[in-house]
């Protein structure tokens, strides 16, 4: 393994505070699986740790990330210009296993958790996609999902699509059509609801988890996530190396 140096191919703010960056990085892009992440050194300031950011898409030599500006690291990243070098590790972690998708996979995303689902949806080609956003001003990548899959959207305030939780749409869909696999990424309450729906309808699930991270490769052990083993024992697994995508039934939510 080695530290990768890519080049910013394009970089634009797609909605206020949310950026879309293409990183030209040669074969590293080809190796990316849906659901993996890159650990980026955000240079030009005093952000010490790397920032883990999920891979949104990968095509040719281009690795695409979409991220929301939240703190010191992402603020520095948002200043990157086309042609500038990007120092990153990855792609890292275990992504979504598309081999077990079956005939009727569901893809469920909430907020910034929708970004890593684009590459997944491309790889699946038969998915029903459900995306949740706070309001119509936060809609991102929706047109791209719509081009490749049957996509439904929900907003918390009803300003676009279904008024309510994305998991309401999922419940209705499962009720009417069932499903073969559920893939989800989003805020913890959404993932917890998805886990419950998966159990209720007897559908296997793969949930992508997030936690404050350090090394990104399994050495520092800070990104703990509680999981239940086959024998019922609860362990602290690690998002960076055991995940970020886990078998949904193993996740223990607080």
């Amino acid at each position, binding site marked *: 393994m080695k530290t990768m140096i890519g080049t910013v191919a394009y970089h634009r703010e797609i909605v206020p505070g949310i950026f879309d960056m293409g990183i030209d990085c040669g074969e590293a892009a080809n190796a990316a699986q849906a659901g993996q992440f890159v650990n980026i050194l955000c240079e030009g300031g*005093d952000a*010490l740790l790397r920032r883990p950011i999920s891979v949104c898409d990968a095509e040719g030599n281009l690795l695409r990330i979409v991220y929301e500006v939240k703190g010191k690291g992402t603020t520095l990243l948002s200043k990157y210009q086309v042609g500038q070098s990007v120092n990153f590790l990855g792609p890292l972690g275990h992504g979504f296993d598309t081999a077990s998708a079956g005939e009727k996979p569901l893809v469920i995303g909430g907020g910034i958790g929708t970004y890593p689902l684009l590459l997944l949806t491309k790889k699946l080609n038969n998915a029903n996609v459900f995306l949740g956003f706070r309001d119509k001003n936060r809609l991102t990548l929706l047109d791209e999902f719509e081009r490749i899959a049957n996509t439904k959207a929900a907003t918390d305030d009803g300003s676009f699509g279904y008024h309510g939780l994305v998991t309401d749409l999922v419940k209705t869909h499962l009720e009417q059509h069932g499903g073969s696999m559920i893939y989800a990424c989003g805020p913890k309450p959404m993932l917890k609801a998805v886990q419950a729906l998966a159990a209720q309808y007897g559908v296997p699930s793969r949930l992508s988890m997030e936690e404050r991270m350090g*090394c990104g*490769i399994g050495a520092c052990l800070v990104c703990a996530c509680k999981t239940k083993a086959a024998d019922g024992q609860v362990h*602290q697994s690690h998002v960076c190396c055991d995940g970020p995508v886990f078998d949904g039934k193993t996740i223990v939510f607080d």
Partner: protein
Amino acid sequence: MADYRVKIAGVEFENPIIAASGSYGFGREYGQFYSLDEIGGVSVKGLTLKPREGNDAPRIAETPMGILNSVGLQNPGVDYFLAQELPFLKQFKTKVIANIAGNTIEEYCRMAEKISDSAVDMIEMNISCPNVKEGGVAFGVCPATVEEITRAVRQYAKKPLIVKLSPNVTDITETARAAEAGGADAVSLINTLTGMAIDIHTRRPILHNNIGGLSGPAVKPVAVRMVWQVRQAVNIPIIGMGGISSGEDAVEFLLAGANAVAVGTHHFVDPMAAVRVMEGIKNYMNAYHIERVCDLTGAVQPY
């Protein structure tokens, strides 16, 4: 050809760079980036007698030029380490330091006994972990207790014994002297400084454990000062650490009195950190025509 070897309590290290406990797992992850032959030693993730799951997340918070962590000694236990992880590390020239943490003096002794029958090169006693409820830091802040526990473990340890000192004390030379009096073969310092960070929007601490240990460049001046003070207080070798991220940083510790240095937090920034720090030391030695790295130890000329 310059000589980078250092000797600590009779153990010869190829160079003075050691991976600090807790930042480096059991060497496998960073071993994907370079051969572990490149670094003098590896102090492994803190071991306990039984496996430990550690604290709930979040376990890390970034602070100005540093990080707070509260992993809480998650580890698979000393027996698993000896059976499953040690053979991997022993493929390399790097010296293996088993870092141990216990809830009671008896636990430290049991672990020292188990490790003494293995291929581990040295034992590092962590009596200064700030992230566990019992033991840990409690043993490390009182000189009398430091001496007592060191003396007890000394009897069971057939390997050179390093005592890792806590910076969360009024006078670190007292605990350093206590470790030496108890029979320690070396001291390592500093462990993390206890700290806290609060999310003002949720009004909750960022760490689930509320408090954690501060490391990274922010602690470096404190660590250099403590190494310098301890150098004047004891005669045993010192492994210096705290915020080292370059060869220049490492040289500061050597000049202050360290015989070897450890790199921790900087691994997370640059996976090649340990190798780059060594390159920096070589460049410094080259620029100043220094033949032996050990000649730098304690060579600061204070006012």
